[in-house]
């Protein structure tokens, strides 16, 4: 009797268990997508945009949990190598569409191939995905369009009767005038070094804007930097630094300090990328400066010069990893992120940055002045430079380029020595 009772109880329990598991199967299985990002600050700028999209995605897909691990650039790259060597690679990762980073990663088979047709109607700007491709295959999506510009303080210009320069000569003369008035002409982040090689590349681009990226790639491969535009650009960078266009000690000034020289009104201009348009919405910056931030494209004149050429590139982006345990889910998240009404709209409307997609469709007319200027610049551009010189070679090339361009700017090596140093790396 007792045995029978026990049997019936256990059978009932088994039946109940079966029903429960069947119901669970009907619902979607829980998925955890691991994201490895280079945006540690989740409460501001691009990190906030990223997190906003992830939160929205989790709300729409209750079975999905997104775990974000974020480190800043250098730490990110170190950990990325560790992940690639181990077996726990996250599902969705930040990548840089530059040969110095992505070539090695693609060769190692870390990234999953994407189907370009999936993104055909996403409105990616022409050429923006080139850096994320290898052997004609697509491995990642670009996050931003970065344009290098000169920000200036319109009120300071007006009060002192200074005009936005139309030629490089005028730019240098303006710098002299600003120096005489006791201000810093251009705040330059020389401590991080890359803004210096971007300045150099900007000059190269405008001196002779035709197919600059290919010319630079060829020069890196052959070690032949005898192109006149290259040599002139290096001379011009050196001259600018010698003439006091940048603040004293620019080679040791870091990003935050350079930006703050401008936002505190100590510098009249500031040389930086379009992502810093977020200064115009940063409430920590005093009103009279924040409302007067404008920008212009560094003017360069000369025989082959192109005043409408833009020095712009698509640096950061995202990829799905090949060995991801949740490849399909990660791919779905990637597609969701880059729906134009997500990344592009949110980044643009909050004045954070310009995406690599067509952002003009989200223009509301309520943009800051600097946003409108940038939008016009991109619309009018006749030539886009693409990835700049330091990011076109290997990681070793990048290090040498960074160090020597800084030495060139402070005058401790000559133009010839600078190019010879890069030449020596050919074929490596």
């Amino acid at each position, binding site marked *: 009797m007792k045995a029978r009772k026990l049997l019936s109880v256990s059978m009932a329990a088994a039946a109940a268990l079966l029903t429960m598991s069947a119901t669970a199967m009907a619902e979607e299985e829980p998925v955890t997508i*691991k994201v490895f990002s*280079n*945006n*540690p*600050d*989740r*409460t*501001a*700028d*691009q*990190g906030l945009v990223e997190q906003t999209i992830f939160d929205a995605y989790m709300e729409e897909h209750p079975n999905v949990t997104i*775990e974000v*691990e*974020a*480190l*800043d*650039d250098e*730490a990110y790259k*170190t*950990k990325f*190598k*560790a992940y690639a*060597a*181990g*077996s*726990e690679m*996250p599902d969705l990762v930040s990548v840089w569409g530059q040969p110095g980073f992505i070539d090695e990663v693609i060769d190692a088979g870390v990234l999953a191939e994407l189907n370009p047709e999936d993104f055909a109607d996403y409105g990616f700007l022409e050429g923006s995905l080139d850096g994320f491709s290898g052997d004609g295959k697509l491995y990642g999506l670009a996050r931003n369009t970065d344009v290098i510009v000169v920000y200036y303080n319109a009120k300071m210009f007006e009060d002192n009767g200074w005009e936005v320069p139309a030629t490089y000569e005028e730019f240098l003369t303006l710098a002299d005038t600003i120096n005489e008035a006791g201000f810093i002409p251009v705040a330059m982040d020389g401590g991080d070094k890359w803004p210096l090689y971007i300045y150099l590349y900007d000059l190269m681009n405008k001196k002779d804007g035709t197919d600059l990226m290919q010319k630079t790639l060829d020069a890196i491969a052959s070690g032949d930097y005898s192109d006149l535009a290259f040599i002139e650009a290096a001379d011009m960078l050196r001259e600018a630094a010698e003439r006091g266009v940048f603040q004293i000690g620019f080679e040791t000034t870091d*990003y*935050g*300090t350079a*930006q*703050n*020289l401008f*936002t*505190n009104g100590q510098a009249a201009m500031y040389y930086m990328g379009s*992502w*810093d348009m977020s200064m115009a919405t940063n409430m*920590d*910056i*005093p009103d009279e400066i924040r409302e007067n931030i404008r920008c212009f494209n560094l003017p360069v004149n000369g025989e082959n010069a192109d005043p409408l050429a833009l020095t712009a590139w698509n640096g*950061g982006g995202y990829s799905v990893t090949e060995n991801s345990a949740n490849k399909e889910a990660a791919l779905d998240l990637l597609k969701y992120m880059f729906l134009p009404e997500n990344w592009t709209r949110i980044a643009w409307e909050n004045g954070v940055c310009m995406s690599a997609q067509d952002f003009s469709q989200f223009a509301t007319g309520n943009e800051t002045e600097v946003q409108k200027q940038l939008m016009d610049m991109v619309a009018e551009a006749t030539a886009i430079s693409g990835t700049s010189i330091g990011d076109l070679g290997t990681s070793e090339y990048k290090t040498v380029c960074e160090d020597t361009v800084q030495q060139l700017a402070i005058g401790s090596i000559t133009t010839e020595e600078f190019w010879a140093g890069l030449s020596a790396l050919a074929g490596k």
Partner: protein
Amino acid sequence: MEKKRHFTPGKIVMWIILAVFAVIQIFPLIWLVNHSLANNNEMFTSGILVMPETIRWDNYVTAFVDGHFLLYLRNSLLVNILAVVLVLLFSVMMAFACTRMHWKLSGVVMGLILMGMMIPIHATLLPNYIIYDKLRLTDTLWALLIPYVAFSLPQGLFLTSGFMRSIPKEIEEAAVIDGCGIYRVIGVIIFPMLKTSLVTVAIMTFLNNWNEFMMAMTYLSSPTWKTLPFSVLEFTGIYASNYAVQFAVMALTAAPMVIVYLCLSKYITEGVAMGAVKG
């Protein structure tokens, strides 16, 4: 009359010099707290100290809430206390084995362990990661505890063994004659006599590991075991960072260390000096 004799010119000069040194030593902390109460833009004004327009206590609120301060503090305390206990335990046992016991390879073993002081952390990051990955130890408490103990042990052994050599053997012999076993000799006789050197080892281990970030960043990925240095990272942007809040985080992070140091500082110099003489 007698009181006056205390203020000789020499003493006054000494006091002035000491005061200057004290100010120099304490200044970074004042600077840290001062900047943590300004806004991000005010930090870059010229001048050493900032006069904030409004005192930004909210930096500390942000540091606490968005920086996951309490969770990371708990993790840091746990990892560090465990590391200190293990380092002390192993240091004393190893020092006893290498200085008091007679066996063939004692000198070689000690030399090998002390060589650990020369290994740079960076060189071990990737190999260790691969080992942890195979053992499924990444992102666990062990991933931090093992290297923290391993990297602190050579220094711990160096200080304790130096100090242990200065303890007369006769004390232990007397204890053994009175019927003490080996564990009792270590626990009841040696341990209390090593107090100064152990405090030094404890403080050094604690200070070194409290700020450690490279290993933590490589071996951990989820917030479960992340330590305090990650709190600073939460306010680092791609290009510009929220420096004011980072200063608040650093002030909060430094506080427990300053307290530990103040409580135990008188033992430090004593311990290092005594260990070094015979080391």
